[in-house]
C-alpha cells in the first residue's frame, strides 16, 4: 500500500507548489489549473503509449473508453471506474465513487470548492491519453460530495 501514498502525497505537494509559485493575478484567472492540466496531459500521453504497447488494436471509440475505465484506471488508481454512461453522441460520463486522490480529505462541504484543483491533473491525464489515441476531447470533472 505504500506506493499509493507516494503518488498521493506527491500530487498534493504538486498542487500546493503550483499555487505557491503563482503570481497574484494568476490565482484568480485559473491559470494554475491550466498548468496542472497540461502537466497531466503530457503524462497521459506517455502513459498511454506504455499501456497500449501490448494490447490489441481498438475497434471504436467505445472500446477506447472501456479501456480507459478498466485497464488505465486500474493501473493508475488500483480500482476500476464504477459507472460509465454515454449518450452515444460523443458524451461519456465516468463515475468513480471513491476517488483515490480525494479520499484523504475530510468529508463534508468545507473543502468542496478546493476539490477542483486536485482534479485538474487527472483531467489532463485522461485528455492526454485520449489525444494520443486519436480522440480530441474536453474533460471536465465535478465533485458532488466529499470524499468521492
Amino acid at each position: 500500500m505504500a506506493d499509493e501514498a507516494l503518488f498521493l502525497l506527491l500530487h498534493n505537494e504538486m498542487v500546493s507548489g503550483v499555487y505557491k509559485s503563482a503570481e497574484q493575478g494568476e490565482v484568480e484567472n485559473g491559470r494554475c489549473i491550466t498548468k496542472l492540466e497540461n502537466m497531466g496531459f503530457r503524462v497521459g500521453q506517455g502513459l498511454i503509449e506504455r499501456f497500449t504497447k501490448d494490447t490489441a488494436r481498438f475497434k471504436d471509440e467505445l472500446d477506447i473508453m472501456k479501456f480507459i475505465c478498466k485497464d488505465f484506471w486500474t493501473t493508475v488508481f488500483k480500482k476500476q471506474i464504477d459507472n460509465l454512461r454515454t449518450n452515444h453522441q460523443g458524451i461519456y460520463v465516468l463515475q468513480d465513487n471513491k476517488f483515490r486522490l480525494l479520499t484523504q480529505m475530510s468529508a463534508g462541504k468545507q473543502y468542496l470548492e478546493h476539490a477542483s484543483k486536485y482534479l485538474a491533473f487527472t483531467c489532463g491525464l485522461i485528455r492526454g491519453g485520449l489525444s494520443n489515441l486519436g480522440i480530441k476531447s474536453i474533460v471536465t470533472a465535478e465533485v458532488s460530495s466529499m470524499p468521492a
Partner: protein
Amino acid sequence: MAVCVAVIAKENYPLYIRSIPTENELKFHYMVHTSLDVVDEKISAMGKALVDQRELYLGLLYPTEDYKVYGYVTNSKVKFVMVVDSSNTALRDNEIRSMFRKLHNSYTDVMCNPFYNPGDRIQSRAFDGMVTSMMIQARRGKESLVARAPGAWSPEEAAKGGAEDL
C-alpha cells in the same frame, strides 16, 4: 537486416527515417511514402479481414524487385515502416516481428522522455543506437559473403567499389 527504418507520426509526416546505404536515400524516402497508402488500406479494411483486426503487426506491405516493405501500426496511430533487402531470404516472419517489437519499445521510451515533445523529430541517441544495431547485421552479412571469395570478381564487390572509382 533492415535497409531502411522509418517512424511516421499520426499525421503522416516522418518522425525518424534512416537508411543504409546513404547514397540514393531519396529512393527509400519515396518507397516509405508510397507504403503509407498501403498501410491506410490495411487498417481500414473492415469487413475484408485481410489482416487480423486486433493485431498491431501488418506484415508484408508490398514487394518490389530488390526490396520488401513491412509495416506495423501502434494504438496511437504511429506507423513503423521497414524496408528489407530481398536477397536476405532467410528472414523469417518472427524476426521481423521481434524487430518491430524492439522498435515499439524504444519508441515508448522516447515518448516517456520528459525532454521530448510529441510531434518533434526523434533525436534520441539510444533510439539511434537501437536502429543501427538492426541495420548493422545486414551489413555484416554482406561483407562476409564478399570475404569468402577474395580476389574473385563478384557483383557485390563491383557495386560497392566500382561506383566510387568512376
